[in-house]
């Protein structure tokens, strides 16, 4: 860029210097020919400087115009206009000075100087205009066009050297060369693609600017030829092919442009409309990524459709299910029907009363096609969606179904206040919009559900962490018993819970529980259970009272369909007794060493949260066992007894009992490991879809 700027500055300097040199050398030559004083400056020198001046101007404007970043055509024309204005005003002010001075105009030196100034200004204007025109013609270039232009440009360059040819030869080929260049210029002038990209307002502006440019050209032409009529007075009388060819070319192109723009004026609205469609399409498809709601997509759809088919009013109606993000099972979506209640509306310039009136009219007159989307044929008959309407405000209607994943979720309705206001092209556009919107909404929903799944997974991770932190790393025990716990949560977060609490030196409280449900709510309820256990344990309660209080506390915070099953144990070292109660939990398995017997304690009980009133304790039964050395107590959750194998058989109570009977003499750790091994062997490769929790106590 810097080099471009430098080049433009250098070329400007060269242009100014060469022009000054031209004036000086020309006047000197003139002086010498008039006074016969030999000045040593050849007659050709002014021509050389004039050629350098042209070239320098060419490069100066080339850098200024070709590097201009703006591709706005009106801006380019504006540049030409300003250049023209400056040069013309300058030239005119010289002329007025000339008029005031009057007599001086007859002086040959003054006349020549004026001529050279005018020539300098005119050529600056012509060359700059030429380069702007080049840019306009080469907008959307092809290889052929580029070649043609290059020939034209080189031809013009070549014509500069004509002045150095002998007079006779020059006049012979002058006409031919000029006409070849003019023909080439006219042929190139056919390229007017830029006109199509102007909107209506820009076209009017362009016409005005071009008209003024033509005026300047006329002025300069008259001005220069006015000088050149006095051929005898001028030293530089040789008319240049370059300037003439450029002049004619610019004139022809300006004239053609004005005409083309003029003829294009009536159709420009169509082009603008097409462009508008493209932009609307883009907006619709971009709205998938950027908009945060489906509502926005619907609004854009309505706006775009209304503006591109020039509708006077319209609305977009959607079934409520269609609008919801369909995160629940899709089968519950009731299909859309135009006459159902509770539709969601997006309106444009229309009242609710009008909508219901129009629907009444359609229903009464049984207008086929409109609002009848049931036919499944793929071939679209656009006339099907069009109809005239007998309504006080609106005379024509256009209705399209909005479909997402092959299900109709709503309809787009467009209205006009004249009959036959919509044609098939408009219907086609609207149809395309509706289709595009359908795709946008589908994508939007997919994206939303993907995000929701991701969020859900994150939530589960957190819940699992919470759950793990709720289970104690070590259970309390004393010299009377060993305790081993095994707990394995399913992939999903479950609600198995166990904990212990040392009441005093003799007593340890133990709890095992199972919270109904899975996921975050289960983890949450489990944490409440932990709170309840730790606070009530300090109150030194009987096992049944513990549950009575726990039920009261939990009833107020558990959801209506949630409950917790639990077993609560008070292990008393002094009495060598376990007192316990069961709140709907799996019955405790116990091995009595003294009578070598294994049994389930199925004492009466009711899950926490099932009965949320004062009657709850009536459904509980307290039990106790005086433990002896070698007794084994096994606590577990229903995940173990209900664990199923591939044949859908459950592990069950019997297997558990048998396992204990076989391994009763082993340590707590061994018993636990053997039961879990047996369980896994039974279940096989089936996925673990519930929590397994197993606690084994062995008394000493």
């Amino acid at each position, binding site marked *: 860029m810097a080099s471009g700027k430098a080049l433009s500055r250098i070329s400007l300097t060269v242009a100014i210097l060469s022009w000054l040199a031209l004036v000086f050398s020309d006047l000197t030559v003139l002086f010498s020919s008039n006074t016969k004083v030999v000045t040593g400056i050849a007659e050709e020198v002014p021509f050389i400087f004039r050629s350098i001046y042209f070239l320098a101007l060419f490069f100066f404007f080339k850098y200024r115009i070709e590097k201009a970043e703006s591709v706005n055509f009106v801006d380019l024309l504006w540049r030409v206009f300003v250049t023209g204005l400056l040069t013309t005003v300058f030239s005119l002010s010289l002329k007025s000075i000339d008029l005031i001075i009057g007599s001086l105009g007859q002086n040959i030196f003054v006349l020549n100087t004026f001529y050279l100034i005018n020539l300098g200004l005119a050529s600056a204007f012509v060359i700059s205009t030429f380069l702007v025109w080049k840019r306009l013609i080469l907008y959307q270039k092809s290889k052929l066009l580029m070649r043609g232009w290059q020939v034209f440009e080189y031809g013009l360059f070549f014509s500069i050297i004509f002045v150095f040819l002998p007079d006779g030869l020059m006049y012979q080929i002058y006409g031919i060369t000029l006409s070849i260049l003019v023909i080439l210029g006219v042929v190139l002038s056919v390229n007017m693609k830029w006109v199509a990209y102007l909107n209506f307002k820009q076209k009017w502006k362009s016409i005005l600017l071009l008209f003024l440019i033509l005026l300047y050209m006329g002025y300069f032409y008259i001005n220069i030829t006015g000088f050149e009529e006095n051929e005898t007075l001028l030293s530089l009388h040789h008319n240049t092919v370059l300037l003439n060819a450029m002049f004619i070319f610019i004139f022809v192109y300006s004239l053609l442009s004005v005409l083309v723009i003029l003829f294009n004026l009536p159709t420009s609205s169509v082009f603008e409309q097409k462009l508008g469609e493209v932009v609307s399409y883009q907006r619709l498809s971009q709205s998938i990524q950027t908009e945060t709601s489906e509502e926005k997509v619907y609004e854009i759809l309505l706006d775009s459709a209304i503006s591109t088919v020039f509708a006077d009013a319209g609305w977009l109606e959607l079934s409520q299910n269609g609008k919801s993000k369909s995160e629940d099972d899709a089968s519950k979506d009731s299909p859309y029907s135009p006459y159902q209640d509770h539709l969601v509306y997006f309106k444009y310039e229309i009242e609710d009363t009008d909508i219901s009136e129009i629907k009444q009219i359609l229903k009464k007159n049984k207008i086929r096609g409109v609002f009848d989307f049931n036919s499944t044929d793929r071939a679209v008959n656009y006339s099907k969606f069009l109809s005239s309407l007998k309504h006080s405000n609106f005379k024509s209607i256009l209705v399209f179904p909005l479909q997402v994943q092959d299900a109709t979720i709503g309809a787009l309705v467009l209205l006009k206040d004249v009959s036959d206001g919509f044609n098939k092209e408009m219907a086609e556009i609207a149809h395309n919009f509706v289709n595009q919107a359908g795709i946008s909404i589908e994508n939007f929903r997919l994206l939303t559900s993907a995000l929701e799944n991701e969020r859900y997974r994150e939530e589960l991770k957190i819940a699992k962490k919470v759950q793990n932190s709720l289970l104690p790393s070590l259970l309390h025990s004393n010299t009377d018993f060993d305790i081993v716990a095994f707990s394995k949560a399913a992939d999903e977060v479950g609600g198995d819970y166990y904990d212990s609490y040392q009441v005093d030196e003799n007593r340890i409280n133990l709890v095992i529980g*199972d919270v*109904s*449900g*899975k996921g975050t709510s289960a983890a949450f309820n489990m944490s409440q259970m932990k709170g309840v256990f730790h606070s009530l344990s300090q109150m030194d309660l009987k096992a049944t009272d513990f549950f009575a209080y726990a039920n009261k506390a939990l009833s107020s915070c558990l959801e*209506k*369909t*949630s*409950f917790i*099953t639990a077993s609560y144990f008070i292990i008393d070292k002094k009495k060598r007794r376990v007192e316990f109660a069961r*709140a*709907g*939990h*799996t*019955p405790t398995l116990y091995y009595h060493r003294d009578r070598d017997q294994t049994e389930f304690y199925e004492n*009466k*009980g*009711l*899950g926490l*949260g*099932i*009965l*949320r*009133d004062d009657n709850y304790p009536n*459904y509980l039964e307290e039990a106790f066992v005086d433990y002896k050395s070698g007794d084994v107590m096994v606590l577990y959750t*229903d995940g173990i007894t209900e664990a199923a194998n591939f044949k859908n058989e*459950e592990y069950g109570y019997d297997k558990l009992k048998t396992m204990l009977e076989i391994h009763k003499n082993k340590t707590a750790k061994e018993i636990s490991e053997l039961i879990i091994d047996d369980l896994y062997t039974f279940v096989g490769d089936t996925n673990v879809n519930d929590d397994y929790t197993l606690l084994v106590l062995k008394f000493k």
Partner: protein
Amino acid sequence: MINIDTVVENGVATLKLRGDVDASSSIDLDNAISNTKNAGHKKILIDAVELNYISSAGLGVFMSYIKDFEKEGIKLVLFGLNEKVLNVFTMLGLDQLLSIASNEADAQKLINA
């Protein structure tokens, strides 16, 4: 998956459950009971002969209606529960709160008592 057919005969609405009631199908069970209740039926029989399995979510549905039914004088009797399903009910203690009959005849007697 659960399939629920509702038959009304002699003022008794019978909901025949077929299949499994798990976390997702418990919603269907809830809807079916709620619809029967909203239709104004005061005597509801649950035919569980072909009920293979019930999860804690399914139990939660039955549990959630106990209080309401008591208040509104609606009688609900279950019958035909297989051993596994019955065990789930009794373990939780729901057998103490719900009327459970072994067969349809007993259930009819219980509900019309």
